[in-house]
C-alpha cells in the first residue's frame, strides 16, 4: 500500500466510514442512536462539496429560499441520509425491519401480480436499498437491483462482500458495462423478474436524455425507458420515503408506459422521460429532505 493510499480510506466515500457504520450498528445502544447520528450528521457538514451541492439543489427546489435556512435544511438532508443508511445496514446485519405504510398500494400489487416482468423506477430518496430488500422478502418475484459501483475500490470490495448477506430473491447488477448489462436486464425482465433502478442520476458512460427538473436542464438515464420499450413492460415509479425513526412510507405511482407511437424512437422515449421527471419533481418537492443528491443535479446550478 503506497503512503498516499492509506489516508484515502478516510475520505467521504472511503471504506472506513462503511466499516464505522457497521461497527456502530452492532455497538451503539439503541437509545443513544439519535445523539450519535446527530453528531456525525453535523460532522459531515464539513464535507464542503456535498454541503454545497445540496444547498445549490435546494435553491432550485425551493425558489427564493435563503442560504442560511438552506444550510440548516442541508443538515436535515444529512440527518435523514444517516438514518436511512443505518437502517439499511441494520437490516443487512440483523434483519431488523422498519414499520411500513403503503401509499398507492394498488399500483404495487399490480406490479407484483403481473405475469411478466416490470421495471421499478426510483430515485436516490429515502431507503432505496432497504426498499428493494424488503420487496424481495415480501414478494416471490425475483428482483434485480441496478446500481452504480462505488468510486473507491476498497469501498466497492467491501460492499460486494456485504452483498453476500443478501438472500436469493435479490441480485445486484452494476451499470458500468452498459451494453452487456442491457442484454442481461432484457433477459431478466422477459423471464418475469422485476428490475429496480434509480432514474434520477446519470453516471459516466450511460446514455442519457435531457429534460427539465424544477426549471433547470438536467439529464435522465435512458436505460430504464429503452428497456421498457424493448421488453414492452411498464415502469412503476416507486419511492421509499422515511417518515420517522424506523418508519417508512412506500409510495407507488401509476405506471409509465413507454410505447412506440411514431417512427421517431427518441421522441417516444422523451415523452416517457418527461413524465418521469414530472413524477420525480412532485415527490422531491414534498420530500426534498430525503433527496440524497450531493452534487448539483444541473450544470446550471454547478456554474
Amino acid at each position, binding site marked *: 500500500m503506497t503512503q498516499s493510499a492509506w489516508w484515502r480510506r478516510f475520505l467521504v466515500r472511503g471504506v472506513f466510514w462503511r466499516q464505522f457504520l457497521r*461497527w456502530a450498528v*452492532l*455497538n*451503539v*445502544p*439503541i*437509545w*443513544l*442512536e*439519535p*445523539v*450519535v447520528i*446527530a*453528531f456525525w450528521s*453535523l460532522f459531515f457538514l464539513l464535507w464542503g462539496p456535498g454541503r454545497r451541492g445540496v444547498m445549490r439543489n435546494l435553491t432550485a427546489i425551493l425558489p427564493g429560499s435563503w442560504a442560511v435556512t438552506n444550510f440548516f435544511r442541508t443538515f436535515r438532508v444529512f440527518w435523514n441520509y444517516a438514518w436511512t443508511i443505518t437502517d439499511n445496514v441494520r437490516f443487512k446485519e440483523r*434483519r*431488523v*425491519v*422498519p*414499520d*411500513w*405504510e*403503503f*401509499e398507492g*398500494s394498488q399500483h404495487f400489487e399490480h406490479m407484483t401480480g403481473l405475469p411478466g416482468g416490470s421495471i421499478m423506477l426510483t430515485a436516490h430518496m429515502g431507503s432505496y436499498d432497504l426498499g428493494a430488500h424488503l420487496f424481495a422478502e415480501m414478494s416471490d418475484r425475483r428482483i434485480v437491483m441496478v446500481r452504480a459501483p462505488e468510486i473507491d475500490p476498497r469501498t466497492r470490495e467491501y460492499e460486494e462482500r456485504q452483498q453476500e448477506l443478501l438472500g436469493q430473491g435479490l441480485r445486484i447488477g452494476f451499470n458500468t458495462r452498459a451494453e452487456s448489462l442491457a442484454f442481461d436486464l432484457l433477459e431478466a425482465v422477459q423471464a418475469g423478474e422485476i428490475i429496480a433502478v434509480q432514474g434520477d442520476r446519470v453516471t459516466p458512460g450511460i446514455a442519457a436524455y435531457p429534460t427539465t427538473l424544477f426549471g433547470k436542464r438536467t439529464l435522465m438515464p435512458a436505460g430504464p425507458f429503452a428497456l421498457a420499450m424493448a421488453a414492452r413492460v411498464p415502469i412503476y415509479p416507486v419511492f421509499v420515503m422515511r417518515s*420517522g*425513526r*424506523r*418508519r417508512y412510507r412506500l409510495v407507488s405511482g401509476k405506471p409509465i408506459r413507454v410505447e412506440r407511437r411514431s417512427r421517431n424512437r427518441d421522441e417516444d422515449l422523451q415523452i416517457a422521460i418527461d413524465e418521469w421527471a414530472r413524477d420525480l419533481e412532485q415527490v422531491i418537492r414534498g420530500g426534498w429532505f430525503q433527496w440524497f443528491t450531493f452534487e448539483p443535479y444541473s450544470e446550471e446550478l454547478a456554474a
Partner: protein
Amino acid sequence: MNFVRDRADLRWLPSRHHFALARLVAYLILRFSGPRPQPGLALVVDRYQSQPEHYAMAIWATLTAGCYVVAVLNVWMPMWAAVLTAIIITGLIVQIPLFTIGALVLPLWERLTGAREQRHEKAISVAYMVLYLLASSYFVTRPGWVRYVAAFSLLVFAANAAAAVLMFLLRGAVRRLEQRCGI
C-alpha cells in the same frame, strides 16, 4: 419478524418498547384508547421500535450530560461560557464511553478471555446506565441547580424500577391485551 397491520393505535403495544417505564406507559395508553384503523400500515413487533421512547431517552441523556458538563465547567468559567462550551462538546463527551468501552475495553476483554462477540450494544448500554447513575448520585449532593437535574435523573431510575415491578405483576394482563391485538 412479527407484524401487526392496519391499526395505528398498535404503535403502543408494550412489546414494541424496551424500558419498563415506557412499557407501562404504552400499556396504559393502549388499554384505555380505542382502535384507530389505518389501512396499509404494517407495524413491526420489536422491543426497540418505539420512536417516542428512544427520542425521549436520547434527549434525557443529552440534556443531563450537558447539565453536568456545565456544572463542571462553571467552576472555572462564567456560566455563559460554560453553557456555550457544553453545547459544543456535549455531543462528543456523550460518545466517549461508547468508543472507550466498545472499541477498546470490550475487544481487549475478548482477546484476553477468548470470547468472540461482534455485538456489544447491551453491555455498552448497561455501562452507560451505571455511569449516569454514578454521576447523578454525585451531583445530587452538590449545591446549586445541578442537584435538581441529578434528582430528576435518579427519579427516572427509581420510576423505571417501580415500573418493572408493576409490569411483572401485570404480565398476565399485558399478555392477554397483546393477544387480543393479534400477537
